[in-house]
């Protein structure tokens, strides 16, 4: 097994080897471990990013804004304000004298220029140190401009990405409940935790429309402030990406009594189950029948395509390393549907229940890792003779350098992988990487000899 830091030994587990399963998780990354995780700011930024008609301004030096400019594949059916990068670009003198005045001026000029429905102000590391009263500035601008201006407490060092999710949800909770709800249907939902990557929210919305369910708001895929204001009028919160959105759902339950269910739109089983769960929640036989018809139609359409890919991919070996563990469950099942075996699975931010569930789901011998790093991941890929690695941009070069296929399942991707159609896209993408002839030339398969490939 890989060379694992002593401090991290209990964060890696091979199913079937140890008697007791006690994976450590939800810990601060070990210094010097080269974690794949980001920071609090990143957590807030990714969650709120897809709200298309809000102004997103990063309060801090320029880096944090540069590195998150147009970074997500979150599409909009209207405004594109979220795709611009705004920063107070704090300089030496601002650090000395404080950045409040600059923030105030920046907010005012940007709100005047872009007329957003709301503004989010992301705090970065040094804002937490120089002691700017961001909240006070936001309040003042909000009064003057007549829109919600929300301080997001996302100072990078104040916790992990999960704390950033929570800060984002706290900001959202200040918008929810400020809109009118009287015309909302009793069969209505909020879609929580889908970010409309490559138009996925639109696909999901279409399924719900066909079922006869009203979607009040999408939080945050193709998000609109006015919809989020009305979110408390929905009858049910349907939560994907539970890592980021469970807190919002819980808070809305407490405050507005809205129940929630956890779903996943990845893979055919999980996708179908999600729709059935929603239909069952409303105890509406007609809706359930409509859902069954729709699922049947979709499956009939795509199964022949999936079967074709499965024949080629049968027995191939996959590794998964993603941000949230919940997505990993769906991926293990989706890969199984393609005849593939998951030999390694890990996440940046999974919790104990997540990992317990993963262990249930996985085959004997599967490696499960929390908050892993390039050295561990590369050794897992080498040892397990993996055919395709599923992860994000930071994981990609680890696979490619070793001559191993890769599928991007992170927030920068341009392929829709959710829903029924998304499963076909996923299968096609995995197939397109695993079956490429280029691996035949890679040293991992054949060494570095120069002789002609037969």
């Amino acid at each position: 097994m890989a060379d694992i830091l002593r401090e991290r030994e209990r964060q890696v587990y091979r199913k079937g080897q140890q008697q007791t399963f006690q994976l450590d998780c939800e810990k601060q990354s070990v210094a010097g471990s080269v974690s794949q995780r980001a920071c609090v700011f990143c957590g807030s930024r990714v969650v709120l990013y897809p709200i298309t008609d809000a102004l997103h301004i990063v309060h801090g030096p320029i880096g944090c804004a540069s590195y998150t400019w147009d970074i997500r594949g979150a599409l909009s059916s209207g405004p594109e304000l979220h795709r611009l990068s705004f920063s107070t670009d704090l300089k030496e003198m601002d650090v000395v004298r404080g950045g409040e005045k600059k923030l105030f001026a920046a907010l005012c000029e940007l709100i005047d220029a872009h007329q957003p429905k709301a503004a989010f102000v992301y705090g970065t590391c040094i804002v937490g140190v120089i002691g700017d009263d961001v909240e006070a500035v936001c309040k003042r601008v909000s009064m003057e401009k007549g829109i919600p201006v929300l301080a997001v407490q996302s100072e990078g060092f104040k916790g992990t990405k999960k704390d950033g999710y929570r800060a984002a949800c706290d900001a959202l909770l200040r918008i929810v409940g400020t809109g009118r709800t009287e015309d909302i249907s009793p069969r209505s939902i909020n879609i929580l935790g889908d970010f409309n990557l490559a138009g996925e929210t639109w696909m999901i919305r279409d399924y719900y429309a066909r079922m006869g369910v009203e979607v009040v708001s999408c939080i945050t895929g193709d998000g609109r402030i006015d919809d989020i204001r009305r979110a408390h009028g929905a009858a049910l919160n349907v939560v994907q990406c539970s890592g980021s959105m469970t807190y919002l759902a819980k808070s809305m339950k407490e405050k507005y009594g809205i129940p929630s269910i956890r779903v996943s739109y990845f893979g055919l089983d999980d996708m179908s189950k999600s729709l059935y769960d929603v239909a069952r929640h409303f105890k509406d036989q007609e809706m359930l029948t409509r859902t069954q018809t729709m699922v049947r139609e979709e499956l009939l359409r795509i199964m022949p395509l999936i079967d074709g890919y499965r024949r080629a991919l049968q027995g191939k070996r996959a590794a998964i390393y993603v941000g949230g563990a919940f997505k990993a469950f769906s991926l293990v099942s989706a890969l199984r549907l393609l005849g593939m075996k998951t030999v390694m699975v890990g996440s940046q931010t999974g919790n104990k229940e997540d990992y317990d569930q993963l262990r249930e789901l996985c085959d004997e011998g599967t490696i499960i890792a929390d908050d892993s790093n390039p050295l561990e991941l590369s050794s897992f890929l080498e040892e397990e003779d993996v055919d395709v690695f599923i992860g994000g941009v930071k994981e990609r070069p680890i696979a490619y350098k070793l001559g191993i296929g890769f599928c991007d399942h992170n927030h920068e991707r341009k392929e829709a992988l959710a829903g029924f159609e998304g499963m076909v896209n996923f299968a096609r993408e995995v197939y397109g990487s695993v079956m490429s002839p280029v691996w035949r030339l890679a040293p991992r398969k054949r060494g570095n000899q120069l002789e002609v490939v037969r």
Partner: protein
Amino acid sequence: MSTRPRTPKAAPRPNWVSTRNPCKACAPLGATLVMRGIKGALPFLHGSQGCATYMRRYIISHFREPMDIATSGFSEATTIFGGGKNLHQGLGNVTSQYHPSLIGIATTCLTETIGEDVSGLLHEYRELISDEAAPLLVHVSTPSYSGTHMDGFHDAVCAVVEQLAEAGASPSAYINGFANLFPGLVSSEDLRFLKEVAADFALPITLFPDYSETLDGPSMDKYQKIPEGGTTIAALRATASAKASIEFGRTLRAKRTAASFLQERFAVPAKRIGLPIGVQESDAFFAAMERLTGNKTPEKYRMERGRLVDAYVDGHKYLFGKRAIVLGDEDLVVGLTSFLAETGVVPILCASGGKSGALKRSIAEVTTHLRELVEVRDGVDFMTIAEEVALKEFKPDFMIGSSKCAKLARQLGVPLIRVGFPIHDRIGGQRILHLGYRGAQQLFDLIVNTLLEVKQNSSSIGYSYL
């Protein structure tokens, strides 16, 4: 022409407080690239976890190579009580996992703001470890609130040389003297090209940084913890004994650089020339190499120059009077402007997110033969540029710059010639050759062909000869 007509006075622009679509990244990013160019070294950021991860992603998306950056991973408690413990633990863990010969530590806005004494902390760590085999530690101060990624880059080059250069360090392999070459932020291909030129001049050089292999390596059957390649520590120690240093970058005049340090401290003569892009600036580079070695420019390069000039002639009508917007890191902008101007392209607007204070003067130096003054903007962002283009009704034929220009180019409906760093929307950014006659040849062909394609596609005739 002795009288150069003045360009119209700039119309009043609203003075924006915010930065909108930045044309720069932050200082530590540049420093991590430099550290990646040292043999056996690992870049390390003293700050919170996110900085390392964001910069890794940014760099990986350009080079499409692994880029491991370690971090001390600040928490709230660390920020209050100081990062010494985290720094020490991080260095220890990196050492046991990566076995680096050097760890290159850069600070961030957080650690600079809370006033971490990194130098002192490293001193403590060295005392604690006292192991002969322990990696060397070098550090650079890169507060993200000061300057851009280019400042971080140059400051890191300077800091490494300052901390490693030793009088009398003997470069045994270099019998007839050797030179230092500090090229700045160029592509991996550019670095390979520079090594080839030096070899052809029979001049041993210490090229620093050298990420030609560490950030553009071959396919592997085993993951390399730290990829092969990079400037050796021995070579860096010996920089003090070089017979000269060459550094690229006209805008560096106001900066303390590795070359200026070596000149002051060890009397190594420093020669600063522009980034050698195009005929004129490449001539200056080859002339410098001739003076340094006493050798004539090898026939190979004379031929490359000849073919390039021949190509300029073949393509001159396609380019004459075409208007370009040049955007990027300051010295790249200067080099590109010099190159474009000598082909007949009119660089109508040259801009950079950097603000060395020397951009305008540097561009003036390389465009003395131009009949029109070039508009120069430094310290700008993309939205300011877009507004200026709209206000002045600039009608460019193309843009040249990094892939961050793509949004503006699309808005203007003109092609973008992708050069420099970062290139996030195409493959092979690390393999673009910008330098020398050969690099100019490739850029020239690309620009002419791009404009021909526009002409061909926009014509209803469908010309098959152009």
